[in-house]
């Protein structure tokens, strides 16, 4: 996971929370967006590999697509296509284009979620 992703995770996980009227943590809008995107990306992966296998992998935000989830490149492309359809304003193509082969291989679920969240926040400059 890259530094920006880690910072965003940290930001959403501990700093950016308020208190609800009942006294518990109340998720901010940003946290909600992160969780929504996280869920959407998970659903895209599940649609390609199946629920049973996805659960078997015990996927976390740190899980790499290649090493941990053992995705084939054609599966990564299928997942990317689903995400491109879901988030048409997110420039996945430019993001992938900027990566070296080694970076592509090491991409994590958290990297993808964080990139989408950043892009949704700043659609004109993300990527």
């Amino acid at each position: 996971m890259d530094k920006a992703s880690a910072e965003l995770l940290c930001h959403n996980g501990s700093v950016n929370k308020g208190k609800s009227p009942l006294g518990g943590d109340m998720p901010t809008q940003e946290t909600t967006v992160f969780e929504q995107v996280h869920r959407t990306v998970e659903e895209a992966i599940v649609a390609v590999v199946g629920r049973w296998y996805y659960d078997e992998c015990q996927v976390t935000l740190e899980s790499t697509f290649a090493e941990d989830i053992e995705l084939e490149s054609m599966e990564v492309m299928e997942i990317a296509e689903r995400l491109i359809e879901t988030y048409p304003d997110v420039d996945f193509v430019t993001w992938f284009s900027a990566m070296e082969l080694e970076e592509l291989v090491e991409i994590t679920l958290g990297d993808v979620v964080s990139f989408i969240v950043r892009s949704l926040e700043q659609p004109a400059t993300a990527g």
Partner: protein
Amino acid sequence: MATVNANGVDLRVNRYRTGPDGARPVVVFIHGLGIVDHSGLSFTLGMPLASVADVVLYAMRGHGHSEVPPAGYRLVDHVADLLALVDALAIDQPVRLVGCSYGGAVALAAAMQAPERVGAAFLVDPLVPHGEWPNRILPMFDSAADVLRGEYTLDEVMVSLGTTSRRRAASAAQRAERLLLGTTILDDLRAEPPLDAADFARIACPVEAVFGTDSEMYPTAATLKDLVPTVQLHTIVGADHLGIFSHTRELTDLLQPWAAS
């Protein structure tokens, strides 16, 4: 990702374009034969061209998530698929073809067969379809088919593919069985009619090619130069046939100006 029926075969297709609207060259990638499809090329070479061209990538018949017809795996079939795909996508300009490995043979054959439809060809460590060219790849495929017909273990597949993933090895073995044992591809390769100098003389478009100096295809660079005297040749020192595709930066540096010109 879309499925497009071309020449009677369902082909999986991806198209990429970024940046402003407006007319651009159309670049179509053609991958190699075997357990691969267009997905690896999409990420490494295709997407980086999307800022200067309309990029089309597809899985050839028998590959990836495209249909696997039981027969029809000669060059002429792949060229027919390619040209029908261009028609189906309503592309009304000559296309620029990037042919990788066997895809290079398809690109050259398309440029011979339909010179008015191919605006340029860029070949990445291509299989040059001249002389006894199928023999450059048949021994490897015959050997793989022999293994698949017998008893083999996933561990052996993992070693031969150089992967630590049992899941990917199992999937690759399944695809290889489907293609090599379930279709006429090996017989079709053996029966390929030779292409001669007169065929190559029909190529009217500019051709560029890059070879890895450690690739078994490298000696055919001279053959290509004889057959297509105007070809512009490049080399990537130390790259072998598979390794050349990990030299993404060098390849992109060659492809970007070629695609945009």
